[in-house]
């Protein structure tokens, strides 16, 4: 897949099958470790799911891949480039070849749907306005919202906003798209539409997709490989079939939505009877 407007990887000799390679990655705020020794590979053309319970560091991992955070240890390589070592100019050049879909779309609320999708084209290219119009309408058509081009973001439903954000993130034909909780808060129809769209766009545009989610059933339908993160480490990984068949307690609890298990229902607290004063500690 050619990358329009911008060059390809830093060195053609370094091009490997793996677009994103993370090795021994650790990250923390002060003494609080969020991620500990993560190893992850996303091959070109794959849809990879990163799953785990809320607050386990999934979104932090996306920020590390996008260069918004620096790891305390380890390596993050995207298309052969070591992300933490890039200066701002090189990082911005890399980001032009990456798209990110935020949890609630993060559309610019003061401009229309059309202008949101045209944003990167206007910022990073000198294309004439008629060509930008055609490109924007094509991107919006790909997500089924060409008719909503003139609406403002406040007039869109949650699912529509995420589809517009998806159109915006593919505006420059990126090589990698990162999705932060794309299924959160969507009705069943929008859920299916969004899931299928991620798969279809990945295949049609030759992208690589990293999907951070805790929606197991929807993601297992569309992804090629799954990583489970818990307590900052990768607890399990495998294809959707391997994950479904897994007997690991954490994966089993997560996939089947069980209330109690390795992830406890109760936050650590003293004994209830002691707390209520009917027993002694």
């Amino acid at each position, binding site marked *: 897949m050619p990358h329009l407007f911008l060059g390809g990887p830093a060195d053609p000799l370094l091009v490997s099958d793996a677009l994103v390679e993370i090795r021994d990655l650790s990250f923390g705020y002060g003494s609080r470790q969020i991620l500990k020794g993560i190893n992850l590979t996303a091959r070109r053309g794959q849809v990879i799911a990163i799953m785990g319970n809320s607050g386990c560091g999934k979104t932090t991992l996306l920020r590390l891949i996008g260069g918004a955070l620096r790891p305390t240890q380890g390596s993050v390589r995207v298309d052969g480039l070591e992300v933490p070592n890039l200066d701002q100019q090189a990082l911005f050049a890399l980001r032009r070849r990456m798209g990110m879909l935020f949890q609630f779309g993060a559309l610019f609320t003061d401009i229309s749907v059309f202008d949101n999708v045209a944003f990167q084209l206007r*910022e990073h290219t000198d294309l004439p306005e008629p060509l930008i119009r055609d490109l924007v309408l094509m991107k919006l058509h790909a997500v089924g919202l060409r008719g909503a081009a003139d609406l403002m973001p406040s007039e869109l439903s949650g699912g529509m906003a995420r589809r517009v954000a998806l159109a915006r993130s593919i505006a420059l034909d990126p090589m990698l798209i990162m999705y932060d909780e794309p299924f959160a808060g969507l009705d069943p129809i929008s859920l299916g539409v969004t899931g299928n769209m991620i798969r279809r766009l990945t295949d049609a545009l030759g992208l690589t997709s990293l999907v951070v989610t805790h929606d197991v059933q929807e993601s297992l339908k569309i992804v090629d490989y799954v990583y489970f993160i818990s307590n900052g480490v990768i607890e399990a990984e495998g294809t959707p079939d391997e994950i479904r068949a897994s007997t690991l307690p954490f994966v089993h609890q997560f996939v089947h939505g069980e209330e109690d298990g390795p992830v406890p229902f109760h936050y650590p607290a003293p004994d209830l009877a002691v707390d209520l004063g009917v027993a002694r500690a």
Partner: protein
Amino acid sequence: MIWGWPVPERSLIPIRHLGHRVIESVWRLGVAARFFVLTLMRSGTCARRPHLVIREVFSTGVLSLIIILVSGLFVGMVLGLQGYDTLQTYGSEEALGILVALSLVRELGPVVAALLFASRAGSAITAEIGLMRATEQIEAMQMMAVDPIARVVAPRFWGGLISMPLLAALFSAMGIFGGYLVGVVLIGVDEGSFWSQMQAAVDFGDDILQGVIKSVVFGVAVTVIALFEGFDAPPTAEGVSRATTRTVVTSSLAILALDFVLTAIMFRGV
């Protein structure tokens, strides 16, 4: 123990707290100064794409027109009433035009317009940028390889800087008109004296230019405070609300303090 004397640990807590607040304030001041310098350094986009600045002149300047014009009119009318009352004691009510014009051009125009600008446009800038952060729009921009300082902050800075002197000038003009309405039309001060004495006494370099300098300085202060508070706001509803309040309070205090400093520097020879 302090100098060998035993001091209860609890009595040190307020002192530590005070020290912590002072260090935090100095730190924030440094970060704000760095933010201001970065904004200036990344203003090239505004020169290449002036429509970004024009848009901000509209939202900070044009949308503040109503409050500025109405306030200016009433301040001028009050000045006319109060001035006439005092001047007629000395039989010099013809000097009403001078009193109204000098009060407005030198002092009230820049200061009151800046205070109104801080509460109308400054708070709007802080809330807008704070909400952009809270809804991940700023982060999205960074992930799209677009520098938010160049794209969001710098156009608002220049928009505010251009709007502020124009608003102060309009405030003064409306104020003079208000003084005319009350003094000449309502009370009956001689119209010729009102205008000719004003024309003779108001100096372009001493009075008008110095008022313009004040309004430019206030414009920089208010806009930088509003932008910094918005950019630095915690991305929560409470964080944005506190930042908006801080913008109005800090800007108002900065305007009054800067007004004293500028007046002391500019009018020391008078």
